[in-house]
């Protein structure tokens, strides 16, 4: 029973606390509509709206004329202006003066022309209705589609306001921001820099930008912020980061041809690249050619971090790329050097004798004859055939010893020494990995042996003789035909 009582008590406390949170202790809201028959003019309570030397808000004594606790219950209005935060640059007295000039000094509609909807009854007031402002100022489009020159008419720059970050984060996004090319694209920059005032004088930055954004906002993306006048024309304000901007790659970067083309594009339009890319961004891949990043700005204070590049293989480096890279590397050697230092090429192209894990798959020692006979790849690109192939063949017994006619190795073809011509012309590089020149000259010499002519039908003796007669003299001596 005592437990039940305790639970009920706790439950009651919780309920009270919850209700207390939901119900404001006191609302400063003044119900204009209920007072519509009391006040014939707004200036009775808001004299400052027409005369800036007088207070804008009513004094408590004015309210106590009625709310004295006898006629009407007391109210807790103490005359302190409500802490209402706004980015409007409104001057009520100027507006009132202009209104009265236009409609007559005795018009009571001056305040209502902004603070009520069209056709509203007396004292059916609300906070300023943007559409009424636009009507008066001759703007015929929707609020957020108003021209750049119009925003500053009514609005302060963001740093001039007292908005909280939470409030800034809830700023409505104008329809223009969804237009194609606005972002990502250059259009937002063109709008920021291209706005002109009523007299045709260009703004340093469009007031439409400055109303909702400050310089810090731009730094979320713009590496080139110090060089962009429009960005520098904005005042700094870290609250502007409440509106998050995410750097997005332009459509061109999604084209599979972009990677091979981006170098040429960057040379053509360096400014475009330096908008989003720092030097460090380029060096993420171009570690071997840092000079390509010279045109970019180095990361530092006052600049955006920019695009964060992750080094990853390009789209061509898929499947068995190691086997296929040669044809691309030969076609576009400069493309390779964009990311690869030459020492990386030399890891395989000048093999490390203590490493067996670079290019060829495991078991290559046994497998290599099939690939080498028909030159699946060009062995000499990486191996000096004398130093590597021959040296190993010699130490493993694969060399011609003694009389060539012994035919020890080619035992599956007993007559190989007599019919080796086709194999030799097809795979001469394989032959010379075990045979020395003197082996062949045993028969194929014009001076000794059997004088067998090794030249094929398309052999251009004159041309070779012209280039290197010493080659001819190996077989012909000084009697070169």
């Amino acid at each position, binding site marked *: 029973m005592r437990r039940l009582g305790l639970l009920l008590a706790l439950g009651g406390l919780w309920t009270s606390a919850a209700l207390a949170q939901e119900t404001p202790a006191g609302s400063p809201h003044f119900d204009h509509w209920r007072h519509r028959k009391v006040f014939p003019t707004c200036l009775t309570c808001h004299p400052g709206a027409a005369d800036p030397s007088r207070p804008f808000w009513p004094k408590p004594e004015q309210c106590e004329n009625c709310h004295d606790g006898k006629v009407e219950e007391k109210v807790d209005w103490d005359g302190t202006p409500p802490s209402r935060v706004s980015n409007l640059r409104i001057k009520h007295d100027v507006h009132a003066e202009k209104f009265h000039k236009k409609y007559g000094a005795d018009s009571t509609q001056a305040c209502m022309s902004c603070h009520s909807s069209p056709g509203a009854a007396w004292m059916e007031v609300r906070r300023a209705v943007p559409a009424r402002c636009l009507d008066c100022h001759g703007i015929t489009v929707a609020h957020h589609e108003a021209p750049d020159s119009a925003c500053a008419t009514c609005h302060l720059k963001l740093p001039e306001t007292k908005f909280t970050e939470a409030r800034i984060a809830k700023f409505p996004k104008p329809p223009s921001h969804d237009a194609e090319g606005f972002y990502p694209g250059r259009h937002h920059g063109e709008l920021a820099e291209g706005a002109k005032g009523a007299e045709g004088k260009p703004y340093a930055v469009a007031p439409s930008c400055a109303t909702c954004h400050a310089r810090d906002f731009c730094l979320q993306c713009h590496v080139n912020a110090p060089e962009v006048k429009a960005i520098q024309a904005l005042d700094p304000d870290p609250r502007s980061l409440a509106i998050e901007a995410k750097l997005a790659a332009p459509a061109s970067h999604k084209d599979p041809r972009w990677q091979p083309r981006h170098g040429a594009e960057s040379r053509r339009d360096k400014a475009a690249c330096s908008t989003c890319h720092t030097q460090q961004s380029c060096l993420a891949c171009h570690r071997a050619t840092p000079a390509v990043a010279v045109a970019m700005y180095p990361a530092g204070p006052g600049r955006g971090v920019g695009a964060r590049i992750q080094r990853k293989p390009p789209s061509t480096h898929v499947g068995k790329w190691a086997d296929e890279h040669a044809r691309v590397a030969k076609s576009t050697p400069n493309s390779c050097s964009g990311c690869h230092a030459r020492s990386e090429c030399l890891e395989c192209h000048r093999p490390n004798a203590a490493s067996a894990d670079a290019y060829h798959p495991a078991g290559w020692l046994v497998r290599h004859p099939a690939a080498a006979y028909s030159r699946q790849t060009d062995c000499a690109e990486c191996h000096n055939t004398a130093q590597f192939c021959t040296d190993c063949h010699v130490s493993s017994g694969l060399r011609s010893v003694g009389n060539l006619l012994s035919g020890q190795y080619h035992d599956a073809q007993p007559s190989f020494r007599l019919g080796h011509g086709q194999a030799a012309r097809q795979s001469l590089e394989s032959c010379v990995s075990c045979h020395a020149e003197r082996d*062949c000259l045993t028969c194929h010499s014009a001076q000794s042996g059997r004088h067998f002519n090794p030249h094929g039908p398309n052999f251009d003796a004159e041309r070779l003789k012209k280039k290197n007669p010493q080659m001819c003299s190996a077989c012909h001596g000084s009697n070169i035909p």
Partner: protein
Amino acid sequence: MKQTNLAVVLLLILTAPLRAQGYLLRLDGRVQSVAYRGVRLDSIPLSAVDTAASGALYSPDGYAVACAPGGTYCTFYRPGSSVQNAPAIVSADFTMWGLGLPGLSLHANARAGGDLVGGPWPGTEPAVQLLEAYARFQRDWLTAQLGRQVRRGRLGFTGFDGAAVGARAAHLGLSAEGYLGLGLARGSVLPATSDLLNPFDEFQPTMRQWVAGADGDWRFGYGDVHAEYQREVDRDTHNFVSERVGVTASLHPIRYFRVDGGSEYDLASGTWGSSEIDLTITPHQRFGASGGIRQYRPFFNLWTIWGAFSPVGFHAYRGSAWVRPVGQLELHASGEHYQYEETFTSTALVSVADHGWRWAAGAGLGLGAQWHTALNYHAESGPGASSRGWDGSISWAPSTILTLTADGGYMERPLEFRYEQSNLGWAGLYGNLKLNERLRFNLSGTWYGEDRQRPDASGFDWSQTRIIAGISWLMGSGADRLSLPPAVRRRESR
């Protein structure tokens, strides 16, 4: 020469941190341990040779022997003693900049090491090898390099000690470069005069050759065009060692399509060299294919006699495709068929294939962020040798610093001109530990079990176990560059 190379490397390494405003140094140490059965040349008197019913000659203990006509003895190879090798190499890749002159930088890439056990191992000599060591000066339109350098292009990798000067008009996409120097041997960091490049004691030039050339590039919106010319001249005889031109182009005129092609022409022999053209299509991030034709023609320097033997090339058509149908599954396949040119030879007693083919297919599957598996099959058949087999691997990366991989496979490889079919199976383990962006360790061990089948006793295998350990240590003042992943994928991604 060895002392000079070593001194240059040490000077660069030791002085860099003291003087340079910026430097980057990667030290890479690797050691490999290999044990396998050696071979031993043996001989027996002709009178001791047995003759089989087929007429083949054998030693009394079953080895096929080779007997020279008119000779009194026959030779053969028999299994030798176990051979142990342990090549160990330390590499240093060094770059230094900020030397007071804007655009000036120094680069060096060298290796030092040898076989710790003492046996010969390809590539371990000389003990100090200077791959590159050059000073580079680069301004917006001008580039100049002086020192040992390796150029790569259509005509391959060309090493030389000399100078290169280039200019470019970036706004036009044009660049051109010329170079001159004393050449290195093809595929080596040694000059062609080195004894190490002459295991057969063949003809060899006595002086290093001049190498000179020029190339030009034009990069435009729809591709690249590259042309180059190169000549090598014997300094002793003033004869040509080689003279070639090459041109390549890479075009991507239409979205998703790319055409790569190129050709070489040997001015010395008057023949078109290796050439190819390929079309690559990547219509989607999950699918791509390429196909093309190529010609391969061997190239020999003119100080050898091999060009006079009229070697022929082959023509091939090839294709490959890959698809990622779902998730992290990737399927890939490739194939090539080649046909040799007419050799104009009469070989009635010997049958030699004049064409061949190869294909491969495989799949890779990622299971979350930690696991990756791969399975591949390959088959190839052509003149001289064939092979077919499969391999697979599974990798586990429990964290960003550790990757463990197990792989294995099986392969059959028959030869055409020799009685020998090799059946090979292997299994290996590989671990890569990346302690931080600067320091990496790796350790791997692979067991190879080989079965060689021959009709005589000389089908002895080369079964072996290889253990490889490595460390890579990166240091430098360019801190912004340290977090980059390696551009060359190592074994774990195979």
